[in-house]
């Protein structure tokens, strides 16, 4: 296992006397890609600025390779070992080449030594052909590529990415995400990325931290965070569309029977009988069959219900089913056509007991 490159302990930041960040602690290992996800205003960008030593903290400690980052020369040395890319490319009024050179020039690198480094990084982000163009005359995607090339040119040990794809159109974003992933792999750079797009986080991250109210609500692997959210807020942000309040009716052998309104569902997990719980079900774990059919499946939860609505959501459709409680499923357009899914139609909704993540209801 690789060593810890960055550690955060008791980091607190206020703005105008209002606390905006309160992080008890976390660590990042060398070569790891950590994404900070969460709605706007939850402190993702503030945490990144804190990690970069760019904002005044009330208290707390940032450690880099086990040594605390302090003000003065050590902070400058630390900053010269990291790079940061913002949502806006923030390029200088100079050529693309000069922009990529800027970080190296700041470090006092000789002009002759710079050239191969710059050319390598221009090529890495596919902007070599724009080298002599003014940064003011390139597209938004090209500008963000240049910004990434500028960041990677300094060969940072740690790169901080603050919503780097937020201003890009989908095809441009797709291409840049791929190139960034490639650059991360070949350089082995450690990264922390703030994003409100969980799909970006899922594609690139080794771990995901979900931020809520200036703190980290949950940190774990993408599978852990997506499938086992620790709270209602995390569940809602990571795309759990069905959140049910229920009471444990029976608990045996790692299986729970939970009473939800007038229905009962089977869940995997352990909890004392009679306890109030929250059940999280991801929409992609729900399968829809024609009404009355007996699906050839080992799934424990087979519920009849009526379709409330069918809404397009990009490539898929969200089908909301009333089966004593509201249950959402994501299906393809092909399924909508084949099954004739329309509001008012009766269907059978199926999901496995292991697809239900159960937590104790807060305060219960």
């Amino acid at each position, binding site marked *: 296992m690789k060593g810890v490159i960055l550690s955060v302990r008791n980091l607190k930041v206020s703005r105008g006397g209002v606390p905006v960040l309160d992080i008890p602690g976390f660590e990042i290992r060398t070569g790891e890609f950590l994404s900070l996800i969460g709605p706007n205003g939850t402190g993702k960008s503030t945490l990144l600025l804190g990690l970069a030593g760019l904002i005044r903290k009330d208290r707390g400690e940032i450690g880099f390779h086990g040594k605390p980052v302090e003000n003065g020369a050590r902070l400058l040395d630390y900053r010269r070992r990291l790079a940061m890319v913002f949502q*806006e490319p923030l390029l200088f*009024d100079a050529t693309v080449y000069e922009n990529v050179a800027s970080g190296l020039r700041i470090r006092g690198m000789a002009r002759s030594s710079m050239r191969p480094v710059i050319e390598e990084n221009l090529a890495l982000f596919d902007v070599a052909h724009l080298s002599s163009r003014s940064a003011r005359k390139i597209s938004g995607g090209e500008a963000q590529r240049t910004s990434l090339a500028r960041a990677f040119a300094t060969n940072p040990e740690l790169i901080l990415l603050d919503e780097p794809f937020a201003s890009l159109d989908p095809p441009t974003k797709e291409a840049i995400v791929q190139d960034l992933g490639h650059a991360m792999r070949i350089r082995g750079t450690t990264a922390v990325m703030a994003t409100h797009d969980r799909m970006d986080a899922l594609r690139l991250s080794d771990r995901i931290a979900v931020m809520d109210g200036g703190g980290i609500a949950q940190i774990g692997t993408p599978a852990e965070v997506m499938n086992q959210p620790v709270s209602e807020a995390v569940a809602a942000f990571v795309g759990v569309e069905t959140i049910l309040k229920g009471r444990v009716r029976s608990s045996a052998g790692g299986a729970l029977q939970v009473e939800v309104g007038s229905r009962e569902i089977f869940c995997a997990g352990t909890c004392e009988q009679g306890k109030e719980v929250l059940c999280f079900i991801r929409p992609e774990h729900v399968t829809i069959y024609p009404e009355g059919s007996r699906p050839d499946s080992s799934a424990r939860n087979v519920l009849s219900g009526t379709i409330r609505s069918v809404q397009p959501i990009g490539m898929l459709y969200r089908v909301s089913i009333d089966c004593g409680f509201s249950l959402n499923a994501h299906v393809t357009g092909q399924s909508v056509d084949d099954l004739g899914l329309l509001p008012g139609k009766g269907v059978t909704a199926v999901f496995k007991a292991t697809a239900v993540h159960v937590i104790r209801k807060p305060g219960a």
Partner: protein
Amino acid sequence: MELILEGIRKAIWLLFTFDPEVLGITWLSLKVSGLATFFSLFIGISLGTVVALARFPGRRLVVSLINTGMGVPPVVVGLFVTIFLWRNGPLGFFELLYTPTAIILAQAVIATPIVAGISLASIQKLPEALRLQILALGATRIQMVRMLIREARLPLLAAVMAGFGGVISEVGASIMVGGNIKGYTRVLTTATVMETGKGNFDIAIALGVILLIFTFCINAILTGIQQRERPR
């Protein structure tokens, strides 16, 4: 109309015959206003940048003072510089009153708030995140300030133009602290005032036209640079 045409003809004649007195006045005007602009750029850009980037109690008051300074009448500046340089004034021992240095000093005082105000606005207009981006690139504070000034160079050219335009055309302070002494402190504006007073309108127009030509040429050069570099 005939008077104006005669004045323009006279200006051309004075310029192309290299009239030594006119050449001397013109050279002194350019030298004095050029040096005053140079000093005001040094002080004004530094002051504007510091006020734009720093956060300190009373900052708004300082910004208001700079903005007020941009509109201070030259005669008021001339009055205070005269008092300071007067034989019994705080700086009287330098014996600078009625010297070209006194005009440079007064003109620098006039131009500095203009340059500082435009610099402040130019630096403030840059995105806040750009400052963070430069620091995140590993820049020291001095490197950051240099890079920000470089980024604001186009609006700063406007500061140069405004500063130079403000001092080359000012007359009140130059007369008060320079005295319009022939061959020593006489500049284009003070000479124009004097010739007008004497009723020599043709020479006054000629001097005015020369002043306009030089002001236009210098501003045209600076505008050329500014427009060439203007981001599209």
